[in-house]
């Protein structure tokens, strides 16, 4: 069972580090997006009335994409600043492929109906959110399969870990620092067990969000004679309803604002989320309006469908969800944590960090243990085994390299020229470029010095971010915190990266001390063997 735990964990740990890093950051994806768009920091505008926002969006879409297959209008939510409109360009016209590849979106100002052109082009926090399940540079299906398989391995690792941890209660509060392998085991146990409810929940609910992709057989089997998959998905995801082929007959779209008002009344004034217009300008147009998620656990979003030309209400979905639908909504909601207030969100963030440290300490524990097992052979003059060297290098590249990559993404946001073509993609490219360099360097010299270099670099980049802010924006900590002018999320971001940078610096200092101690030890007894070269083990 211990063997199962070790191998399930080790095979996928580096992907899981990426998933944890991206996912944990996603808890604050909107705050991150705000930080990455300094042009929006000064505007503390009053909320725009819904009818006006909708009218502006429709006018903009009418002008920009009159023949689109589908329009999306996302109303400005509580934590967002601007309004997002999207459309699916019609096939042909030089646009090929799936609806997903023909999807374009822009941010517009809800008050003026004009695009927020003066805001720099950036994916913001959305990149980090998408990163943790869509990865990048590959078709999303592949990425989601990879992440799902890793999640399944993690689920098995969690259960097998609990089974094999016989002293789980006795060792509940145990942490013995400065004891080499035992310390890593204690760290792994602590970060895993103390946040066990979170780890179990986030893994299982993550699988639930992708469950129809990796386990489609239930749908296919049960709905074979009931209209197939489409029928099932229309029941479960009302936002996808109404996607019929256009009739090819032009007809003016009815005014959307009154429909929105009607929908809101139906839901006793609850705020709306998205308006989807299928086949705008056609006689077979439909409008699907979904309600925002409430602050309860469930992520369910009831929807209303209207005829696009007459405005007649055609269907209502999800108003009376069954217990199972509520359960699914709750499981989905737990993963996304939309319901979390600032304190709870901070707790989720902390647990996510704990997850990152759990995976990292597990991988480091294996490396330390294996190096000790091979110590005699290495002392006798043999090289470290291929597996050991690979894991040690991957550890540095992933554990210390990811912070470097993240920081580079934020640095790129501040330093790339605003008019750069495909600026948003360039920021993302720099994230991966920085990570690649870190990982490559780690492969060359996976030793203590490389750990110190990369941890130190990560620390410098993170601590440097608030400083960079001073030179590149008007909304640095001096203004947001000391003068108290806000926006508060921007100050919180600066403080958080500062704290993370300090933590990385402290880790680097610990390693520096260890290196010095080892060098003193070497000078005192020059006949010491090559076993000293190991990266992390403390030969106390």
């Amino acid at each position: 069972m211990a063997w199962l735990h070790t191998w399930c964990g080790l095979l996928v740990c580096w992907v899981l580090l990426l998933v944890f890093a991206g996912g944990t950051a996603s808890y604050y994806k909107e705050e991150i997006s705000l930080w990455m768009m300094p042009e929006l920091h000064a505007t503390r505008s009053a909320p725009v009335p819904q009818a006006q926002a909708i009218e502006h969006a429709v006018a903009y879409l009418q002008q920009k994409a009159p023949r689109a297959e589908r329009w999306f209008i996302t109303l400005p939510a509580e934590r967002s600043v601007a309004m997002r409109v999207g459309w699916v360009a019609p096939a042909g016209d030089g646009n090929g492929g799936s609806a997903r590849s023909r999807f374009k979106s822009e941010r517009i100002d809800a008050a003026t109906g004009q695009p927020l052109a003066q805001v720099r082009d950036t994916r913001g926090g959305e990149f980090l959110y998408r990163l943790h399940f869509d990865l990048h540079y590959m078709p999303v299906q592949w990425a989601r399969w990879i992440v799902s398989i890793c999640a399944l391995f993690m689920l098995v690792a969690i259960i097998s870990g609990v089974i094999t941890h016989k002293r789980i209660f006795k060792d509940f509060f145990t942490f013995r620092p400065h004891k080499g392998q035992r310390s890593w085991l204690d760290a792994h146990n602590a970060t895993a067990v103390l946040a066990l409810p979170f780890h179990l929940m986030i893994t299982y609910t993550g699988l639930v969000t992708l469950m129809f992709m990796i386990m489609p057989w239930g749908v296919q089997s049960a709905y074979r004679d009931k209209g197939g998959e489409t029928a099932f998905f229309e029941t479960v995801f009302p936002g996808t309803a109404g996607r019929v082929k256009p009739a090819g007959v032009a007809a003016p779209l009815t005014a959307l604002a009154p429909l929105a008002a009607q929908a809101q009344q139906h839901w006793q004034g609850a705020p709306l989320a998205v308006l989807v217009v299928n086949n705008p300008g056609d006689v077979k147009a439909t409008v699907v309006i979904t309600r925002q998620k409430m602050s309860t656990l469930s992520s369910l979003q009831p929807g209303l469908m209207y005829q696009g030309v007459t405005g007649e209400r055609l269907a209502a979905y999800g108003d009376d969800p069954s217990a199972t639908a509520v359960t699914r909504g709750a499981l989905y909601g737990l993963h996304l944590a939309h319901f979390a207030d600032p304190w709870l969100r901070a707790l989720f963030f902390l647990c996510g960090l704990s997850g990152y440290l759990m995976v990292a300490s597990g991988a480091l524990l294996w490396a330390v243990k294996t190096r000790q097992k091979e110590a005699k052979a290495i002392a006798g003059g043999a090289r470290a085994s291929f597996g050991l060297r690979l894991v040690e290098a991957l550890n540095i590249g992933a554990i210390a390299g990811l912070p470097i990559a993240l920081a580079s993404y934020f640095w790129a946001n501040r330093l790339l020229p605003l008019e750069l073509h495909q600026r948003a993609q360039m920021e993302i490219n720099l994230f991966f470029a920085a990570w690649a360099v870190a990982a490559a360097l780690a492969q060359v010299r996976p030793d203590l010095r490389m750990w110190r270099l990369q941890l130190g670099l990560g620390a410098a980049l993170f601590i440097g971010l608030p400083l960079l802010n001073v030179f590149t924006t008007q909304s640095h900590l001096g203004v947001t915190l000391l003068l108290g002018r806000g926006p508060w999320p921007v100050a919180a971001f600066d403080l958080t990266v500062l704290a993370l940078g300090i933590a990385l610096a402290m880790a680097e200092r610990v390693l520096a001390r260890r290196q010095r101690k080892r060098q003193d030890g070497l000078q005192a007894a020059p006949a010491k063997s090559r076993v000293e070269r190991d990266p992390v083990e403390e030969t106390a």
Partner: protein
Amino acid sequence: MTALGFLLALGLAYCAWSALALAMDRHYAELHGRGAEPAPPVRRRLRQLGVLGLVASLAVTMRMQGWSVGMVAGLGVLTLSALLQVLALTYWPTRGPALTRFVLFGLPVLLLLWAMENLL
């Protein structure tokens, strides 16, 4: 969740973990000398207090946020307080109980303020 409620729940859970830790041989021995073990009635009492404290902490979060969200928040509070307790036990083994006593005496004040906040 308000700051007061959060701190109250955190404090309750922290003291509860202290009691549960003290009921264990290893951490009892850290204070009372190697090989010392808590007498059975003492161990039982400590465990009971610990469980009571955990339940009280959950009760606070569930009062603030309802059953489901409150349970989620409560588990998060338990995680954070357990982490703090591990750090205290590791780096301040002899001064840990003093810290727990400090938190314990602060709890009635927090409780009063939180109750007032709820009633007003």
